């Protein structure tokens, strides 16, 4: 119960931080938004489903970008403000505090994703014909959950470095490439496929696209099986999303223990 209380309080605190300076949404949303616009302009000679493919990918990038920035800066900001030691010495374990923040960030990530979708749909008149709206929403929410788990994992690694901001900026494009938000991962070299498949959002965007009505021939399962699958694999996609999210949380729990101990030993936590 005290853990849950710590998580809820941290969630509220993160919400207040966000509401005090909502312009911080711009850095998180600008890259996915601009890249989606660029891709739509590159797709000018292509019509129909291909455009929806790009728009959905842009939405996913919006969620991704937010997770990455928020997990990087939630620790870094505490360093700048000189409050990180105070956060670490409270009786609650750091993971519960970061978890509350991560859940808020994931929620804002969904807002980001939806904003990219809505703006692209309004500006480019993309018809949003979703084949299975129920599974579309389920896929969206499950992907959000997996992003929260991934944010937790990133945060644990960012505790030890005072250069989380640089790492966050540096990871943006590699993750966009690896997750195949805007192109099928089959185009990537074979050695990169395991890396792509270890990212829950890769499976999440696959499920979202299948729910939107895309044929499975560009699906990640075509890469796995080496041929176009006969039927949709949306439930398997979602199972992979859930499985990877659980793995991320398990690894994050272990990492947080190690990182907390290390931070106390070196005494360099507050070094800006």
């Amino acid at each position, binding site marked *: 119960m005290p853990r849950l209380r710590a998580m809820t309080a941290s969630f509220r605190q993160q919400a207040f931080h966000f509401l005090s300076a909502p312009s911080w949404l*711009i850095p998180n949303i600008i890259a996915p938004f*601009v*890249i989606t616009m*660029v891709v739509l302009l*590159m797709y000018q*000679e292509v019509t129909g489903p291909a455009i929806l493919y790009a728009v959905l990918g842009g939405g996913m990038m919006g969620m991704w970008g937010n997770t990455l920035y928020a997990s990087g800066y939630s620790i870094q900001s505490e360093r700048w403000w000189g409050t990180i030691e105070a956060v670490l010495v409270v009786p609650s374990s750091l993971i519960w505090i970061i978890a509350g923040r991560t859940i808020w960030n994931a929620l804002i990530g969904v807002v980001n994703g939806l904003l990219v979708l809505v703006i692209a749909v309004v500006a480019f008149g993309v018809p949003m014909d979703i084949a299975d709206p129920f599974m579309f929403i389920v896929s969206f929410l499950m992907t959000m959950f997996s992003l929260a788990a991934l944010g937790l994992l990133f945060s644990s690694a960012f505790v030890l470095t005072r250069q989380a901001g640089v*790492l966050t900026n540096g990871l943006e494009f590699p993750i966009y490439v690896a997750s195949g938000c805007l*192109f099928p991962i089959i*185009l990537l070299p074979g050695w990169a496929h395991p890396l792509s498949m270890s990212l829950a959002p890769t499976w999440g965007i696959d499920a979202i696209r299948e729910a939107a009505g895309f044929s499975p021939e560009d699906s990640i399962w075509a890469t796995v099986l080496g041929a176009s699958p006969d039927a949709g694999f949306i439930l398997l996609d979602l199972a992979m999303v859930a499985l990877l999210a659980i793995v991320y949380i398990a690894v994050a729990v272990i990492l947080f223990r190690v990182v907390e101990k290390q931070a106390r030993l070196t005494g360099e936590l507050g070094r*800006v």
Partner: protein
Amino acid sequence: MNANVMQFSRVFWSSAVIAKKALFSWLNPSLWLMQLFTMSLFQIAMFWYIAQYVNPGQSLDYIIVGNAMQSIAYVAVFAVTNITGEEKESGTLPAVLVTPANRFAMFVGKAMFQVLNSMATVAVAFFYAIVVFGLDFSSVDLLTLAVVIAVTCFATVGFGLMLSSMGFYLRTTMVLANIFLFMGLLFCGVNFPVSDLPEFLQPISYAIPMTYGTDAARMAVEGASLTDPAIMSLLGSELLVAAVAVLIGYAIMLAFERLARRKGTLEMF
């Protein structure tokens, strides 16, 4: 006159040296190298794969050169725009502004390391362009390309300085830096020609130096020499736009400094 020039040069040089020292006092050199060697690789890869998916079989040289040039945005736009914002967050902006040193020399000097950093970034990007992405480099005019890169780095840093000047008044430059970091992808003819943009947006493209730089780099890769009137015109336009941006930035800096002093917002972030 001579004393003024000497003082200007001294402030300029010491600001450039301090900026470089300050960067490496908080940024681990290995992380700087990681940035240098990965940023351009993944940016080019992203659009290279998208283009392969959208238009399979078509030449990708247009996109490769565009993104190799645009890769300097992280350095020349993002880092330079944040110069004033970082002074503010470190609590050093008021101390910097109470010195009698020439403001122009000080802030241009602070950005100079980023010109070198930009040149290194583009050089690495072109290495990847040739070796990893198969850019056809057989007809290149190397001297022209080197001049185009140098001019574009100076011009883009000048543009970044204009954005940075707004940091005297804004609570943070981070938002502005992020906006303009990616705007180049949309407006500067990086992945598609400027003429593909809606007509009302095209003037924005021609107000950004990078637009001229990417076109000139493509011509240099195709073999155009420095004496080619088209190259000369592009480089001339790029330098003119950059000079105007720096002057506007200086005017904004002075105006916002006065405004921030009057409102007491110099330290607000």
